[in-house]
């Protein structure tokens, strides 16, 4: 299906409508980077307007921006593009605040953008890595809800992990 996107002459445009009514006009080759949209296009065929009631316009815009970069970089199958994509991905996630990060992650998940989910979950994982439990709680503003002693017990049982 999406292989037709490589023939640059025909660029079908799709209309994506976010939950807040904001609409985006995007090339099919860009939007079908998202599995959910790819499925809809394949199933519904002619329908050009796609409503996405679970995604806010601000974040849909960012998701599409990511798709566009990747779609563009993938058209010319140069090996250097991998590097470009990687560099661009790095830029993309570098300064995201947590709120945006989770909004994007849920949007990407909802739209089955597996590559983007991969990138964003990797980003969250990188925020956990190398931190102590207290630092993790601080970073993510999580309060411990263990009963007194419970946490100690888990730690004791797995003491090897805390050395």
């Amino acid at each position: 299906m999406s292989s037709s996107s490589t023939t640059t002459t025909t660029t079908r445009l799709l209309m994506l409508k976010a939950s807040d009514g904001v609409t985006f006009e995007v090339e099919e080759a860009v939007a079908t980077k998202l599995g959910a949209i790819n499925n809809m296009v394949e199933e519904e065929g002619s329908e050009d307007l796609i409503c996405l009631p679970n995604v806010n316009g601000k974040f849909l815009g960012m998701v599409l921006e990511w798709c566009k970069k990747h779609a563009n970089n993938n058209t010319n199958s140069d090996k250097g593009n991998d590097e470009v994509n990687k560099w661009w991905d790095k830029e993309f996630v570098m300064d995201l605040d947590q709120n945006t990060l989770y909004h994007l992650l849920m949007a990407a998940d909802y739209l089955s953008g597996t590559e983007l989910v991969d990138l964003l979950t990797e980003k969250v994982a990188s925020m956990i890595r190398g931190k102590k439990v207290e630092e993790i709680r601080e970073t993510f503003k999580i309060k411990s809800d263990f009963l007194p002693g419970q946490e100690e017990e888990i730690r004791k049982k797995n003491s090897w992990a805390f050395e």
Partner: protein
Amino acid sequence: MATSDESSTNITGHHRQRHRSERLASIMRKKRKANSIDDHENHEEFSISTLSDDLLLEIFLRLPNRPTLIQCSTVCKRWYSLISPTQFILNFNQFRHNRKHYYNPTSASLPFEIIFRYDQHPKLHKLVSEKTNQKWKIMSTSASNYLNCLPWRSEFIIRASFGDLLLVSRRGSIKDYCVCNPFTNQWLALPDYTDGSWLQHYYQDPTGYGFTGESNQRNDDITQYKYRVTIIFKCEFYLRGVYTFVAFVFCSETGKWFKSYPNLPHTLSNKLERQNDSTVIHDIVTSNGVLYWLGGINKFRGIIACDPFSMDSVVNRLRGHFVHFPLGFSHGWRRSSSKGKVCLGVVRGQLRLLQLHKINQSCFGLKVWELIDYGDVTRSWILVHEVKLKGVDEIFELAFHPNNGDAIFVVRDRIIYQYEIENEKYEKISEFPYDDYGENVDQERSVARFPNVFIIMQPLWPTSIPELPSI
């Protein structure tokens, strides 16, 4: 979190333009419109707790190692419930299963280490793969450094491995055995198996050791890991068509040893020359819960299979059987000391047999078979590889690659390689540490030139050794 929620709606409220026109014809890129009802919801402040379980798991699955995961499990109850051993592994398996298309199946195979050492030498060598680029490297250390958690001051000897667990014994003692997990440093001293009057006649070194854990496929109850340690003595072929040995089996559920004299029929009688030749066994491995080893008198005669989990309650004996070598296995020269030329191993859980035989001065033939159908009646070998290794003066196999059926680890001209059989590709790993052992010193005892090899798999979650049941 609730307070920041309010403030964010205030700020965005000011910026909002309240256009109502919804005419799709006039669509322009990124034209912002707002729906006042959605306002609040859309700009809700999200935190990591907003994420679904699936997304949180996706994140946890990207953490680098198990200690990090364990630490994360103590952050809060929800994280704990997602990461606690049983649930996480189930989730993980489910997750991988659902995303089969997304994950490269080979990258999902578990990491492992190959440990080898010589009986008489304090040093121990580990082949480990570097996580990032899949390159192998060798690490040498003294055995006592490797497992410094053990309760013994004196040196120990690795006897067997299964999964991520090792069976070790104390040098110079015939009754001190420990099961330990080198990743978590957990250990358990096994009770003395020489208890009572059992062992008067067996005051000698055992012939071999087996370690069998229950298959890790079913993870319903990981906390109660079941295993058997088997110590084997006095293997003998009898002309009347039986193979006998004495087995002491430690049962993890009862915390006790039991003794068995298995009696396995074989059909080699007419081929056995002299009965009083020394009986040998090599390469005790575990596949599908069954122990297999090479057995023979001077020469390897076949493979003995014995299931330490199954006991014939009528005669109080372990069940087992004799497995003939496949057709095409070359019988000419295989001396029992030819370790590394005839090898048993386990690849993706299935038993494999390898044979290297010299064709001429600079060429070896390599054959690998896999045993299929583990029913008691029908078993058959399939030949999975048959190649010639040209331009090779001397070679022996160090170990099978436990996850990749096309790769073996070999030592050729003093170099350890990972060899891809079908591509005929050698990937150099390191020098083989001959020097430590005074290769020439042990000339007569050619066995000493070949190290004892143990493979340790790193499961998703380290196996926890159950305590001895209180009696």
